[in-house]
């Protein structure tokens, strides 16, 4: 009815342990109308979305995937604070039908905080094929809240779930009081602590019993809150109760409490879950044994990753298939592969756009800035989009199939030698495509220090932009030598990555051994829908982060290449601000025997490459007036040793601006970003001179 008053909004917080299928279900619930932002002040993502149902507007907030509310990680603290703040009318807790006992734990913890809970059992479409049968009503009766089986993949149970959420929000279903778990022999302590706590102001906002239990388990965050309101005595009293418990039971209180909670959980779940053997587990365990084998595991994983990358590289640039075909005496086929690579098509597209802009816009400032700055600059980023999508696609397949954590575990022993854990595999792999998503993926690493070391060293991993430059520079060398220099560049890059990581690790006081604790979800055939979502999310991310920065910078670059230091339009790039700056740096190239024109042109190209690595090629051709990088290099008369030295330098020197921006965003430290530049510059410079000396000798 038109006159009806405003639509009722119901706020729903969604929580679940990692891997329960939260992202998938969230996408289905919100129809993928998801708004992504960061939680205030931190780089943990916050997803929000809406859904209309029976005349209400449901507002879903996706809380980080967590195992519990101990607040021992940033994610746990964020999720917990959100629920405690009372911002949600209903908390939707997701439980994995394939691991109900373990994933219900979070539901119990939520119920201890608030009664307004709906529980959804995810992946119910495949529970039976895994031999798991769950009596949902029995669990609902015991807990007093709705328990709904759903499948995001088959879109089953979604309506029922939405109905249940509305019923709980409007008080027609659900419990009135938070759940009281019987902690048995610990109960006297809990009651005593509850009495103390209920006198504090904190207990006016939060359930006293919950605070009491948490404090007995040891909770720095809550202790801090109590201290701040001056309830130091309560904190002290509970501390001595903790010591009492430990002395009497000879076990840490937090272990006792989790144990009691799990015992309570089993008493509810065990009668409601029936398992039959299906053979799925046996097969999956054989694969797990293979991946954890000290030799077979790393070999298998490396082969999988190598296969992915050779495929992506070939589709993207034609390399290395083109050179192999060439060497095999099929130059025609090699050329075909090169011309039909994605990169070549995109470059043509960007050129066509520039021509179109030149033809359609009236001559003047606007045309110059659009055709000379914005299109080439933004185009340079867009050229990488298909690549990002390709890499993201293959990694999404590995992730969705459940192979990703197995690859991480198999490479853990090798990676620990350089001070990082198996969690670093995916940041490294992504970096081979583009460093930006690589650095962003380092977030998932549990150790904060490892995360910083990775952010600082991942830019050494040659991304595809650098591959393009390396290929162009190497093309000045003929045939197999060109291929060798490319391989050499990759080997040097990985050695430097490993070496610098090791050094940074050794420099740390109180080094902690890299450790690994990973859940291995059941292996399964990837779902097209999930793979597509993961891929698309990665692409969107890249566009948003890199796009905005590059847009502004391409204007800046255009400016310093088109204007003279006197701020009048430059007749040729040789008179530009950039060239003037390059001349200042040119003497630095003297150790590899470059001087005069070749020195400043090279310095100019490298300077431009700071913005986006692939721009090195354009800068070389602009400054020399030659059509290709190979000819530009030949026209400068560079020798093989110089080409080799420059290839190494290009591979290792400063991260591009987009990567630098992400390093800053992820670490929130200008110092770390600047140190990264300094480290990379000095390592690149020394390696360049070494490479030159080496190649001059042989």
């Amino acid at each position, binding site marked *: 009815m038109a006159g009806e008053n405003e639509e009722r909004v119901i706020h729903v917080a969604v929580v679940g342990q990692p891997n329960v299928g939260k992202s998938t279900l969230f996408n289905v619930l919100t129809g993928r109308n998801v708004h992504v932002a960061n939680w205030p002040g931190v780089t943990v993502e916050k997803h929000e979305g809406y859904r209309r149902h029976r005349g209400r507007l449901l507002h879903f907030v996706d809380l980080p995937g967590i*195992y*519990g509310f*101990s607040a*021992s*990680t940033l994610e746990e603290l964020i999720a917990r604070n959100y629920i405690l703040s009372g911002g949600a009318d209903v908390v939707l807790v997701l439980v994995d039908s*394939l*691991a*109900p*006992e*373990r994933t219900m*734990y979070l539901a119990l913890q939520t119920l201890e905080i608030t009664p307004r809970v709906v529980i959804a059992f995810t992946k119910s479409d495949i529970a039976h094929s895994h031999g*798991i049968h769950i009596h949902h009503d029995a669990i609902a009766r015991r807990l007093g809240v709705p328990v709904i089986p759903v499948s995001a993949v088959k879109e089953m149970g979604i309506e029922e779930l939405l109905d249940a959420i509305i019923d709980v929000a409007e008080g027609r279903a659900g419990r009135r009081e938070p759940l009281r778990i019987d902690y048995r022999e610990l109960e006297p302590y809990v009651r005593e602590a509850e009495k103390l706590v209920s006198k504090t102001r904190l207990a006016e906002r939060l359930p006293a019993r919950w605070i009491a239990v948490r404090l007995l388990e040891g909770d720095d965050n809550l202790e801090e809150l109590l201290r701040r309101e001056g309830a130091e005595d309560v904190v002290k009293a509970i501390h001595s109760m903790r010591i009492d418990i430990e002395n009497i039971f000879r*076990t840490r209180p*937090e*272990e*006792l409490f*989790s*144990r009691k909670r*799990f*015992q309570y959980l089993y008493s509810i779940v065990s009668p409601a879950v029936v*398992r039959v053997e299906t053979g799925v587990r046996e097969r*999956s*365990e054989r694969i*797990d*044994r293979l991946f*954890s*084998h*000290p030799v077979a*595991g790393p070999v298998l994983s490396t082969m999988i990753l190598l296969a992915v990358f050779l495929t992506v590289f070939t589709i993207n640039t034609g390399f290395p298939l083109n050179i192999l075909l060439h060497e095999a005496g099929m130059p025609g086929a090699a050329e075909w592969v090169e011309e039909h690579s994605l990169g070549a098509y995109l470059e043509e597209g960007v050129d066509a756009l520039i021509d179109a802009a030149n033809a359609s816009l009236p001559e003047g400032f606007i045309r110059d800035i659009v055709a000379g700055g914005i299109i080439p600059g933004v185009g340079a980023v867009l050229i990488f989009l298909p690549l990002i999508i390709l890499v993201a696609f293959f990694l999404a397949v590995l992730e969705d199939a459940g192979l990703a*954590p197995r690859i991480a*575990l*198999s490479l*853990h*022993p090798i990676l620990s030698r350089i001070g990082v*854990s*198996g969690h670093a595999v995916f940041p490294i792999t992504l970096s081979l495509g583009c460093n930006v998503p690589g650095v962003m993926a380092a977030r998932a690493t*549990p150790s904060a220090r490892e995360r910083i070391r990775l952010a600082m060293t991942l830019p050494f991993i040659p991304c595809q932009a650098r591959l393009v430059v390396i290929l162009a520079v190497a093309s000045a060398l003929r045939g197999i030598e060109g291929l060798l220099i490319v391989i050499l560049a990759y080997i040097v890059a990985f050695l430097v990555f490993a070496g610098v990581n090791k050094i940074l690790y050794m420099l740390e006081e109180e080094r*902690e*051994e*890299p*450790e*690994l*604790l*990973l*859940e*291995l979800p059941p292996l399964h055939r990837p779902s097209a829908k999930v793979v597509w979502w993961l891929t698309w999310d990665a692409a969107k991310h890249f566009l948003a982060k890199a796009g905005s920065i590059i847009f502004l910078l391409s204007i800046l670059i255009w400016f310093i290449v088109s204007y003279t230091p006197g701020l009048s339009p430059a007749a040729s790039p040789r008179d530009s601000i950039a060239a003037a700056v390059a001349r200042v740096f040119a003497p630095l190239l003297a150790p590899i025997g470059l001087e005069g024109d070749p020195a400043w042109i090279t310095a100019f190209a490298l300077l431009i490459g700071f913005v986006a690595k692939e721009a090195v090629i354009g800068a070389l051709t602009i400054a020399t007036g030659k059509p290709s990088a190979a000819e530009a290099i030949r026209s400068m008369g560079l020798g093989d040793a110089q080409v080799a030295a420059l290839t190494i330098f290009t591979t290792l020197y400063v991260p591009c601006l987009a990567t630098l921006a992400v390093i800053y965003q992820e670490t929130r430290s200008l110092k770390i970003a600047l140190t990264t530049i300094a480290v990379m510059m000095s390592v690149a410079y020394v390696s360049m001179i070494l490479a030159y000396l080496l190649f001059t000798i042989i």
Partner: protein
Amino acid sequence: MPTTLDALPPGKTARIIRIDAPGRWRNRLLQMGFTPGSLVRVVANHGVGPIIVSSMGITIAIGRGIARRILVEPL
């Protein structure tokens, strides 16, 4: 005879007695249901590298350093 988790051969089942791993890892293990008193079964243990164990229908990979600090009673 109590021993540590990393010393168990594949296929062996044991009851967890105590977890001495550093706080962050201990918390995570407790939350995943690897509490004292619970049963775990070793899926893979090659003597080096992470070991794989399963409990209550989930499988996890545990770094050897952490596994060495989990005291268990083999059954």
